[in-house]
């Protein structure tokens, strides 16, 4: 069977970068590699045409986030009660003191401490440079939820990193749109 040339190019030229992006989204390299794998399968199981490598990479990045979130959601039905208990009773992981000695490690730990959807929103907004609307569409969230998650994420990162994490941007005005 013939190899999709765009898939070939993505794997040859951008695989490592995609994993790097996925590490930000998932918080861990094994999860990241799985997320990239799943996203590539998802994207290339449909007959999409990409105008460029950049276009394809952007699409896969959105798929990484959405697939990752989906994977978190799918398990929730059968384990909802356990997860609710876990969420209620278990404090989110705070960065260990030794991690804070290293900026990178502290950031990784801080990102890992975010809830998956919050982390995905932050990654899509500020790493993939997606708009609120695009982020909402990719993750199946409302625009308002994206705003809130993003704001929550920045606040949490600020707290955990001990510095004011900012993201100056132009406010998006939505008028009369529908999903």
């Amino acid at each position, binding site marked *: *069977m*013939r*190899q*999709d*040339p*765009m*898939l070939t190019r993505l*794997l040859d030229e951008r*695989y*490592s*970068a995609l*994993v*790097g*992006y996925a*590490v*930000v989204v998932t918080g861990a390299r094994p999860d*990241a590699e799985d997320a990239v*794998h799943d996203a*590539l*399968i998802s994207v290339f*199981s449909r*007959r999409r*045409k990409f105008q460029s490598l950049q276009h394809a990479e952007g699409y896969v990045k959105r798929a990484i986030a959405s697939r990752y979130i989906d994977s*978190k*959601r799918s*398990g*929730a*039905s059968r*384990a*909802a009660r356990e*997860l*609710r208990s876990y*969420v*209620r009773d278990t404090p989110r992981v705070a960065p260990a003191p030794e991690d804070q000695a290293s900026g*990178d490690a502290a*950031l*990784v730990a801080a990102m890992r401490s975010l809830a998956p959807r919050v982390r995905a929103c*932050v990654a899509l907004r*500020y*790493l993939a440079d997606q708009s609120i609307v695009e982020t909402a569409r990719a993750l*199946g969230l*409302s*625009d*308002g*939820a994206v*705003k809130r998650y993003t704001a929550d994420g*920045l606040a949490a*990162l600020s707290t955990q*990193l001990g*510095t004011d*994490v*900012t*993201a100056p941007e132009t406010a998006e*005005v*939505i*008028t*009369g*749109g*529908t*999903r």
Partner: protein
Amino acid sequence: MSDIRELLHGMQRDADTGADAPAGLRASIQRMARRRRVTREVAGGSLAVVAAGALAWGVVRIGDGGQAAPAGISMSPSPMSSTAATPTPEPTVTPSISPSGSGDGPWGDSSSTMLVPATHQAANAALSPTAGPTLSIGVLEPAISFAGWEDAQCSSMVGACGRVEAPPATREILDRVAPEWAVVADLVNAAWAPDAPLSALYLASPEGDFYTLLDTAALESGLGVPMGTVRDLALNARAGTMVLEMIGQGGQNATVFVDLSTGRTTQLFFSDSWTTSIERDGDSWLVWGATTDGTPFGARLAPDAQSWDVDGMWAVKDGQVERAAGRLIVRSDLGYVGLPQSDLSIANVTAPTSASEQCEVVKANDDGLLRYCATDAGSAPAGQRVAWDGTVSQAPGAPILVGVPYWRSAVALGDGILAAYRYVNGDDPTDNPDVPLYEWYRPSGTTVIDEPSAFGLYPSRVDGAAAWVLPETGVAVIGGDGTWHQLAEWADDSDLQYAHHASVLDIG
């Protein structure tokens, strides 16, 4: 102070080790993508067949509906040409819209291609309870058959008959003949390599065997243009006929009628402007779509493609055509119009609704449609009823002004409209973005479900009920009586709040 973008890009750079993709990953992705594609297409087809079964249709169209694309081409309602074997029929009606491309052009004036589907005794034996020259298929349509699939014809015209030893490499289901039978295209990686497009159409059996249905090389030799892909297809297995909407490699579209038993082809349209959907309606065909300048059209084609009922040609800009409640619903920048499927007469085109409103149709039936409209600023969204004669009435319920809506959506619920929208206080759209307001417009009056919530609520339509996607917790379905069910939930501790919310919505 740290810039989040710099932090994240730094984190990404650190995680980007430059490592190559693991050996075997490529093949794994390719293999799983292919498997998922086939699975999804089969599943999608099954769903469509279920829907079609409910409507007692034997053949289901699988594919996209017509959609507009920018261009400037006028309507061509009667560009019919036919094969050499069949005289060109006169269209029954020629609308006043100026024709274009009435048979000559890149697709050629007429085609005399003889297309004979492959058949074989073995194929017949495999497909029919009793071996013989008739290919019988059917669960939805008992006793449907392809007539005239004689071995001699097959051998003389096509050469390679019967079951295909090497099944298509890349398959896409284009139509369903029965729940487990499908018309399958061999795309030869068409999506990935536009210069190597569709090569053939096959009939796929439940056992996974493939039988040549149409050799597209023969088809394109008659049309004179390299085949790109089949955009839509409807197969009348009982009559052994098929209507194809094709896209040539040059981007031209053509709608072609194929008589599988004789090989006769009739070019119904040719134009680079048609974006057509085809659906069987009994033994005739409904063909509708929009030209690339956004001009919707609809017409009924006789079973043998010898005549058109083209009364239903109409023109509105930037439109799309959908099908609902036995009507073709034309949506345009001017609003909605609906035509009864049984009578596409232009006389039935109703006055479009106001162009100034942003409306979402939530329900359509024989009486008209229910829609929910909102303006960008300053006025309230409202539920409205629009009769098919164009009469617009404020119904059900009355609009309630609560602020400036900047997001809204609505679904049909019972005999009314359940609407959700968000509004802002003051000029800052981010001031209070997460406060949706829910209203249930009912004939008995509007019920306001004013329950500020920090959560989004996205409705979508489900048969007979409204489904609301609750981003925080899952999917809820509200029955027509207002009862509430949560079908799924995902991890969050907020569903306790939605339990409260459910009680608010439980107002039936």
